[in-house]
């Protein structure tokens, strides 16, 4: 047998690349049929409206009369000079950060509690999940009965003892808190479930090793378990962040964005633009801007946690 050398580079790089590409394409061709149905649905039913929305965002288009003129990026320019938009955006980010943060902290605490608990876990887990399965429109109604001024459960309960609790929905600062609590009520269960499942994936031998090294329960949680479920954390945070940005139904029912504009989020403003002012072009522009902002946030989360994962 011959000793062969690397001297067969007579093949041009282009040819080489095309061979590799051909192989990959063959592999992809076999997988295409799997993608096709979903791609069709995504294209016709999602991408098309999305593209259409972007197209509309270039017009000064009134939904009610159908009057429309091409304005280029004027809608975007208008948005960026609109103080109401900036206020709504800052407020939205505040609400999203507070809500998702609260959900994560409570979710993690409870998930860890469930993880440590040795009995009754399944029943508690199921019961805790209930708020998450309630239809959002109805969930908002349920919460209104709790938080409404005077005759709401909280207020009237406190009043029974001659103590007047904060005006949950009527005070601008408290209204923001209430809106955050409302979101947390509905989505902390989701956090708990996912994080609990995540904690259960941690290799027990790692934990035992840490115990032998003398780590405390808290150290084990923060130094061993959390780093090893970092991708799960990234997943729930991203998912929640994206959905919280679209947070609408509950706010609409609870405060309608009020008092004043205290709880008006970007999506509330989109709604107002589209269905009150019929400025569908502007609303679409706002939708596109929202999408880009959220995409940026999502990339940051994924990148940060992704890097952490690389380190551990």
């Amino acid at each position, binding site marked *: 047998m011959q000793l062969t050398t690397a001297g067969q580079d007579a093949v041009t790089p282009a040819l080489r690349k095309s061979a590799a590409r051909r192989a990959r394409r063959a592999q992809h061709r076999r997988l295409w049929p799997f993608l096709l149905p979903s791609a069709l649905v995504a294209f016709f039913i999602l991408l098309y409206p999305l593209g259409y929305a972007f197209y509309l965002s270039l017009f000064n288009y009134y939904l009610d009369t159908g009057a429309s003129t091409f304005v280029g990026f004027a809608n975007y320019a208008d948005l960026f000079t609109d103080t109401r938009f900036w206020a709504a955006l800052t407020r939205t980010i505040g609400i999203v950060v507070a809500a998702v943060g609260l959900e994560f902290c409570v979710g993690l605490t409870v998930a860890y509690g469930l993880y440590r608990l040795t009995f009754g876990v399944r029943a508690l887990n199921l019961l805790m999940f209930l708020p998450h399965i309630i239809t959002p429109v109805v969930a908002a*109604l349920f919460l209104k009965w709790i938080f409404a001024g005077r005759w709401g459960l909280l207020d009237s309960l406190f009043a029974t003892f001659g103590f007047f609790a904060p005006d949950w929905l009527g005070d601008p600062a408290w209204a923001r808190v209430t809106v955050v609590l409302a979101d947390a009520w509905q989505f902390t269960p989701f956090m708990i479930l996912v994080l609990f499942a995540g904690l259960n994936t941690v290799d027990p031998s790692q934990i035992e090793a840490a115990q032998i090294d003398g780590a405390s329960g808290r150290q084990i949680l923060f130094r061993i378990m959390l780093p090893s479920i970092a991708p799960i954390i990234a997943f729930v945070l991203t998912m929640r962040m994206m959905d919280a940005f679209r947070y609408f139904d509950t706010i609409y029912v609870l405060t309608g964005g009020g008092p004043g504009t205290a709880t008006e989020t970007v999506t509330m403003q989109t709604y107002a633009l589209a269905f009150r002012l019929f400025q569908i072009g502007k609303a679409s522009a706002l939708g596109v801007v929202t999408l880009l902002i959220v995409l940026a946030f999502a990339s940051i989360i994924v990148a940060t946690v992704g890097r952490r994962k690389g380190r551990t």
Partner: protein
Amino acid sequence: MNAGRFRTSQILLFVALAAFTAAMLTPVVWALMTSVKQPIDAFAIPPKIVFEPTFEFHRQVWLEKGFGRFLLNSAVISLATVVVSVSIGTMAAYALSRMSGKAVGGIMLALLSLRMFPHMLLAIPFFILAKYLNLIDTYPAMVLALVAINQPFTIWMMHSFFVDVPKEIDEAAAIDGAGEWQTFFRVVLPIVRPGLWVTALFSLLLAYNEFLFALVLTGPHTKTLPVAIAEYGGEDLNYWSLSAAAAIAIMIPIVLFMMALQKHLVRGLALGAVK
């Protein structure tokens, strides 16, 4: 470890978690009570814990307001959505998990952005599309819309399960003589079955509870429960009691479903859940 102390700490932990659960359930329990109270008691100050229950509103919901039909609509639409969405989403997720190259990352990110777009802006094009296809107030319109908005989540979720299946399994199947479809259906899919249940549950939740598209795309023949409930949004307190009664009713099927699936749920999430 001191067994006694261990026991005490377990009980304390249980009590704390039970208290948390109770707090979380308060609005639900309160709504349940509201549904069996006359409005005069439901919104009394101070709140009434002891009252004479009335099943008037539950009776009305089912016997007079035709919620049985809406439940049927909801069931048909959400089950069809789950079946279609999970099957095509799973296929796509499998393909994406087995493809390489930059395009895949791009597709996944594009899917994410579809999830982020405000739904109310999709409602209008959806309506126009459905009108054009003459599908307003039909099941297919609603199912298609739900499948579409469900795709990103389904694909992301299933993708995370599929990437956990070692590629050697596919290769072994290929060598055993399985084609792509056989590999998918007979080998890879059964392995991720717990994940399939989780994805199905969340898709079901989304479809069952979807409101906005249902409002726009359904009509008298296909109206779903959330829309039916929201139609009793206000302007009379009896409507609130009806909403409460209907809301309690709408939860029951999902609760039962959850109970049946709970074992798969935690296991499924633990299996993949984007490890």
